[in-house]
């Protein structure tokens, strides 16, 4: 099922970008009120989670479609997910983050399905 393969890349990219975004003061404040800052522990965890998700996305894309092709797909998916995130943030920040959680869970499920097959 090729669509799960592609979906996993997108889910990881969106979840990863959202984590990195939330780790920033400005966008954390978008969600939790002006002046709010993420506690150090949370910030670190979010950054790790974000970068790991993006890295896994790249690795998976390269594994399933070849090094060059996979990289191009990953970059394109970053653009697409980034644009979506940035569009949602100012208008519906809670939805943006909800989508991030859903994407994270979906990514895990997709990974499981692909591992089992």
């Amino acid at each position, binding site marked *: 099922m090729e669509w799960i393969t592609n979906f996993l890349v997108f889910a990881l990219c969106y979840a990863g970008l959202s984590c990195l*975004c939330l780790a920033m003061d400005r966008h954390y404040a978008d969600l939790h009120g002006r002046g709010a800052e993420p506690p150090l522990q949370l910030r670190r965890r979010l950054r790790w989670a974000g970068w790991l998700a993006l890295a896994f996305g790249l690795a998976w894309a390269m594994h399933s479609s070849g090094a060059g092709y996979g990289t191009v797909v990953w970059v394109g998916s*970053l653009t697409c997910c980034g644009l979506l995130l940035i569009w949602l943030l100012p208008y519906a920040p809670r939805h943006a983050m909800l989508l991030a959680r859903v994407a994270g869970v979906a990514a895990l499920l997709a990974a499981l399905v692909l591992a089992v097959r």
Partner: protein
Amino acid sequence: MKEGFRQSMAWLHTWSGLLVCWILLLVFCAGTASYYRNEITLWMQPELHAAAGQPVSSEQAATAAQTAMQERAEGATRWFITLPGERNPALQLGWNKPSKPGEKKKGRRGNFHSEKADPSTGEVLSKPRETRGGEFLYRLHFDLHYMSALWARWLVGFCAMFMLVSIISGIVTHKRIFKDLFTFRPKKGQRSWLDAHNVTAVLALPYHLMITYTGLVTLMFMYMPSGVTTAYKGDQDTFFSEAFPARVGETKAAGVAAPLTPFAPLVRQAEQRWGAQVGFVSVNLPGDANATVTLRRASGRDMSSKQPTMEFDGVTGKLLATYGEEMGGASNTHGVMYGLHIANFASPLLRALFFLSGLAGCAMVATGALLWAVKTRQKQAKALAAGKRPSFGLRLVEALNIGAIAGIPIAFGTYFWANRLLPVGLEERPKEEIAFFFGAWAVAAIVAQLRPTRAMWRIQLSVGAVLLASLPVLNGLTSGSHLGAVLLGRGPVAVAAFDLVVLVLGLGLAYAAFRLKPLPAKSVKSAKPATKADVTPDTAAGAA
């Protein structure tokens, strides 16, 4: 320059961007549309919508082509056959029509005949209306129009270099490129335009860099021939035969008639050797004893645009030579860069991502121009409030902005409308369709120059919106494959996709026009953002 590195780069970014942005917008819009040029051409030939057909093997298609051309291409000395592929379900047949003695030479285009055929039977598909279709948009983005291709390519290359400089200087000058990565603050005037510009530029930055550089690479031997001439001491032919291996020189006709060997076994042999499909077949001197058949591999998912070819004797079917199977690192790099620009290797998903990034590019150019206009208007705010007129530069830029950002969608929309409304048997039909494209654009641009006001923005955005969003309706009325039909499984998906995309773009333009409510008379201080910043740029580009 004297002010410090970042500031000089900011200055350079502004001017290298602004001076050529309107041409670049055209290039980006037409280029982005070109990702789907085959689909656009299909939409513009409703007569062909019904012929979906079952997929056939390359051997079958090649055999059907051979039979068809033997019948129809009397006297031709060269055959060109494009086998059906992912983007093109039909067989594409082409041959040269040698001029009869005493007949005036019609020039290359007039002497070439091309048609689409059913890949299972070889029969000509019901003759569709004459149109350049998506090919016009593709050519537009580097050959422009109404000027010699050579001049156009130099101009576009010049603008591409400006763009490359603009991108790099933009990266250098963007202080908080990571901190501001996700920042978008709507409804804040100048800041919103800046955010929109930054976001569309940075989020698709790898794409923008790639498409600009690879664009230059596609014509690099024209733009930078000095390497070739120096290393080969002027002998360019040797360089090209080494770099792009293929048979050199024309074989002369033997003058002896000999039957052409059947294509099917050749296709089978090639596909076995490459493990991939054959994309293209060309025949030299069919029916002659010196005939040759050349097969070229189809571009699969492999990123290089350079595909190997196999050359066979046209009478015996013996393999004469293979070309392009071994390639050096630099040649391969060139092929990959070329391939990345043309993106033939892309799956439907990746093609959609390229298209999205291309739209982001259109948005980047548009928001950049708008940002300059808004900023400059604000700088002149005091003078304007005191009753002075806007400076020449500001007025010119504001008028050009309307003419380009709102005018290009109008041009695209008119082109598609003309395709359906112009009578089918019209003389020089493709030229007429193109004339409508430019005519509509000229009207929009001229009117914009006369009155570059907020009201003009509303008017032109609305016109563009109507022209684009109504295309699905027009399609339904003028062809059998409207959206409803496709949903029921009757009709090509590509046509429905076209309908949906132009509908979304049209609605975006409509939303932008809607947001441009007339300003209350008193407020001259800050320029509120004309529209919801992210929607306008994404959709104002009007790529189909």
